[in-house]
């Protein structure tokens, strides 16, 4: 194992008094590695920060969306109620779209408004706007859709249309399984998960001169929106400006969907000749926008009697919904991670994402990996049980080490943190000693006479501890980063300011703070000396989308290189260190700016057609240990604590990084236990905050985040990605803990009381 450059340990509730806010010991550096406070923190604390719906836009009208109520139907026409006064509103249908009726993304199969066929419930069919919300809503309700129903396909396993299929593998799986002493089979299911960013989707479109448009919105990817607007409105790139306002969370939910919203608001604004704002209420946001893909994952794992892993056969089916959106790449990431971070000579991963007449699923933190890694980890824990070895011990034997080869044929050369996260998490959580105690308690319960059990009050709650390990490729999959060819720049302005130019957005993860820290360190100036230019496409270049845990690693790397060039340029002129000379140099040299374009990491080769090669330039690694209490009468699961160790190359800002681990872990705990979106006939049933539950302060476990560093030489600052990683590992750790407590395996997320009771009964029945 490579030597640790340093690590930092963040707080837990138990000892938060001692550690929160204290800068953890991290790698050296004057600016990088320090927990500088979030830049926009004071504005967010005082209510001064402006989110989209906070913008006061004089004369703006209010836009609303008329949506389908059927899963599949032919649209025959729209009937406008003649009794309504239509002179006070504008209405836009597919016929009025000036450009192509498409929300440009990958396959370009999703219309901005239904033209002839409705393919899912809540699909946008028409738009209305008026001077006040009540009038606009009344107008929407005065339009009736004439439709003719078509048969709907709701089950991805029954669907014959795939948006993408992949087969990845190495070795000979059938021969490996045939030679194995033991083959463990398992099928795992995961349902929808809603991002539930607290700020609902919001967009304001302002018509400009020459039929151009400027949109202000809550979004992650300004240039996605920019490209989609130009396409749908038939405008040249210069006629479109996209401005990201303060954004109240995204988690992937504001990756692709804001393009749809921006098109809608712009169509209305151009039609009305005035600004139009569309802000979804919570109900519309949950009912209509993208979710995490439901999936069914099947495993066959072959092992030898002495516990060697010889074959993994994995089958993944994801429900894409009605349009492709990002499903092919979600599936690709899910498939590449589907065997887990384990060395195995014979692997086959077959994956497909199927069309159904349900609302399209899309990006959500983890992007396909949480689904497949839940299955992979639960499978490994079941193999450990079958072999009678500890889940920790089995992972010690199987987990990737430098030199190992992944299913796509990638040789892991460096920055392989699987071993270090496992050891640190096991030590911090006291994993084996606690596991020994829970095993004893389980044994005592099992041997107690049945009648005696109810006499003991404390006997009806079972405590368990569970472990999981995960990897997460940082950046776009395969050749994605090369295609993006991202640009980011650093400027010393004529008045002596340092400015960072990137469209990477601050969505709560701390991008603004972290990127300015990286630039400040490269220039040798304090972080406060660095300003970040506003996220406005007329000002900043396209640095690629703010997704895929790529901002710190990829965009941060570009900015450091740009800053180094700026520093060299100024120092060559002044003969003095940048920090002491850049202001005076401004008077003579004026504005100087250096842009860097991404050109690829050295030695990274990928073939998209065969899905072979270096799937990611680097991987981040996480292990988590969860402890739960299961009420054996009600089936309720209470997650008491999660210890998470995340290895991310280099920790730029320990407090912000720990915040990512804590928040991602809590979302994973929600995914494992309470977050369930039920659907019937292609419609979500519990599409409100009162019925789709997310963890509150009292539900949240004590979370301890441990940050570790195995430097990644491919990046100038040695950092890898973090944002998504914690989401991969929390759920399987919780499910393993439920098993440790009860002996029952939960094969479908979330582990609702009903599912836990059913699993307990199935287990008792077997005895």
């Amino acid at each position, binding site marked *: 194992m490579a030597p640790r450059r340093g690590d930092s340990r963040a*707080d*837990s*509730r138990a000892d*938060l*008094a001692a550690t*929160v*806010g*204290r*800068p953890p010991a991290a790698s050296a550096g004057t600016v990088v590695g320090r*927990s500088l*406070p*979030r830049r*926009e*923190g*004071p*504005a*967010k*604390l*005082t*209510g*001064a*920060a*402006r*989110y989209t*719906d*906070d913008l*006061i836009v004089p004369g703006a009208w209010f836009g609303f969306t008329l949506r389908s109520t059927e899963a599949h139907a032919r649209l025959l026409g729209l009937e406008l109620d003649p009794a309504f006064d239509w002179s006070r509103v504008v209405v836009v249908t597919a016929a009025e779209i000036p450009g192509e009726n498409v929300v440009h993304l990958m396959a370009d199969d999703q219309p901005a408004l239904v033209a002839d066929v409705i393919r899912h419930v809540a699909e946008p069919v028409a738009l209305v706007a008026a001077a*006040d919300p009540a009038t606009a809503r009344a107008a929407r309700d005065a339009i009736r859709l004439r439709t003719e129903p078509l048969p709907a396909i709701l089950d991805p396993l029954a669907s014959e249309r795939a948006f993408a299929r992949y087969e990845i593998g190495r070795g000979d799986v059938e021969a490996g399984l045939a030679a194995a002493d033991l083959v463990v089979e398992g099928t795992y299911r995961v349902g929808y998960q809603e*991002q*539930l*960013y*607290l*700020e*609902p989707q919001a967009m304001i479109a302002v018509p400009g001169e020459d039929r151009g448009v400027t949109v202000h919105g809550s979004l992650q990817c300004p240039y996605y929106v920019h490209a989609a607007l130009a396409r749908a409105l038939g405008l040249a790139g210069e006629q479109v400006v996209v401005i990201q306002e303060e*954004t*109240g*969370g*995204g*988690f992937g939910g504001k990756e692709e969907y804001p393009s749809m919203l921006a098109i809608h608001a712009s169509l209305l604004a151009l039609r009305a000749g005035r600004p139009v704002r569309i802000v979804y209420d*919570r109900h519309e946001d949950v009912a209509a926008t993208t979710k995490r893909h439901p999936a069914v994952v099947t495993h066959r794992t072959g092992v030898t009697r002495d516990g060697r892993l010889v074959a993994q056969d994995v089958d993944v089916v994801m429900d894409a919904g009605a349009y492709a959106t990002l499903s092919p790449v979600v599936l690709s990431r899910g498939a590449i991670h589907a065997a887990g971070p384990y060395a195995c000579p014979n692997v086959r991963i077959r994956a497909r994402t199927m069309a159904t007449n349900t609302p399209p699923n899309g990006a959500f933190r983890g992007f396909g990996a949480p689904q497949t890694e839940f299955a992979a980890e639960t499978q490994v824990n079941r193999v450990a049980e079958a072999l009678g070895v500890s889940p920790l011990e089995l992972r010690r034997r199987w987990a990737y080490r430098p030199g190992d080869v992944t299913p796509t044929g990638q040789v892991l050369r460096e920055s392989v943190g699987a071993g270090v996260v496992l050891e640190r998490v096991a030590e911090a959580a006291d994993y084996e000693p606690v596991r020994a105690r829970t095993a004893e308690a389980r044994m005592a319960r099992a041997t107690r006479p049945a009648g005696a059990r109810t006499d003991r009050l404390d006997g009806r709650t079972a405590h368990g501890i569970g472990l999981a390990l995960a990897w997460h490729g940082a950046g776009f999959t395969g050749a994605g980063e090369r295609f993006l060819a991202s640009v980011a720049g650093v400027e010393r302005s004529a008045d002596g300011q340092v400015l960072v130019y990137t469209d990477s957005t601050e*969505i*709560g*993860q701390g991008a603004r703070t972290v990127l300015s820290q990286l630039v400040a360190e490269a220039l040798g100036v304090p972080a406060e000396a660095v300003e970040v230019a506003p996220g406005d496409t007329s000002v900043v270049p396209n640095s690629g989308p703010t997704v895929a845990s790529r901002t710190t690693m990829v965009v941060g790397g570009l900015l450091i290189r740009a800053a180094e060039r700026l520093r060299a340029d100024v120092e060559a002129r002044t003969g003095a260190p940048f920090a002491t000379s850049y202001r005076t140099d401004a008077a003579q040299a004026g504005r100087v700016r250096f842009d860097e374009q991404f050109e690829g990491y050295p030695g990274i080769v990928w073939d998209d057609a065969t899905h072979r090669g270096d799937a990611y330039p680097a991987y981040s690694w996480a292990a988590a240990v969860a402890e739960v209490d299961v009420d054996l009468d009600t089936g309720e699961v209470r997650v008491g604590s999660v210890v998470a160790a995340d290895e991310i190359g280099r920790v730029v800002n320990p*407090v912000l990084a*720990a*915040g990512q681990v*804590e*928040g991602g*872990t*809590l*979302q994973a705990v929600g995914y494992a236990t309470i977050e369930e979106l039920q659907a019937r006939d292609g419609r979500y049933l519990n599409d*409100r*905050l*009162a019925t789709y539950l*997310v963890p*509150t*302060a*009292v539900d*949240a476990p004590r*979370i301890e985040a441990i940050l570790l560093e195995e430097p990644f030489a491919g990046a100038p600052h040695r950092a890898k990605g973090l944002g998504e990683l914690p989401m991969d590992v929390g759920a399987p750790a919780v499910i393993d803990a439920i098993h440790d407590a009860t002996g029952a395996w939960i094969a479908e997320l979330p582990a609702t009381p009903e599912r836990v009771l059913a699993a307990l009964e199935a287990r008792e029945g077997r005895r």
Partner: protein
Amino acid sequence: MSETARVSLTLNGEPRTVEIGAGRTLLDTLRWELDLTGTKECCAAGECGACTVYLDGEAVNSCLVLAAEADGREVTTIEGLGSGGRLSRLQEAFLETGAIQCGFCIPGMVVAADALLRETPRPTLDEVLQGLSGNLCRCGGYTRICAAVLRAAGAADVTG
């Protein structure tokens, strides 16, 4: 437009009078009539606490309160906390502990936490968790928010 009503209230210490449509919520009135947009709307159904303000010294979900109910009463919003453009001790603590991420829950969270500390100046961790259980945060793990409240209460005297 339906009937209107005149509402006079003391808002962040200043007397204000607005003419509003009957049935308008306090949240809408703050954001749309009084241009105080620090208070957020997330669910409009009393489920998230993003819209928390003080009404006569009590923390309420302003999306569930009719503006008419605020007539003759005192309303304090996030804009009214802190003094002279300076952060309050509680706000400082949020900044120091890293309790803020996207920030959308934060105005409501700060008002709710402020109310909690007025009621219980030296809360235990459990009291903080209970007291903030009506305020959702989707970004963090609640750990840092609790730490901020405890720090502001002086329960956690930490030196850097």
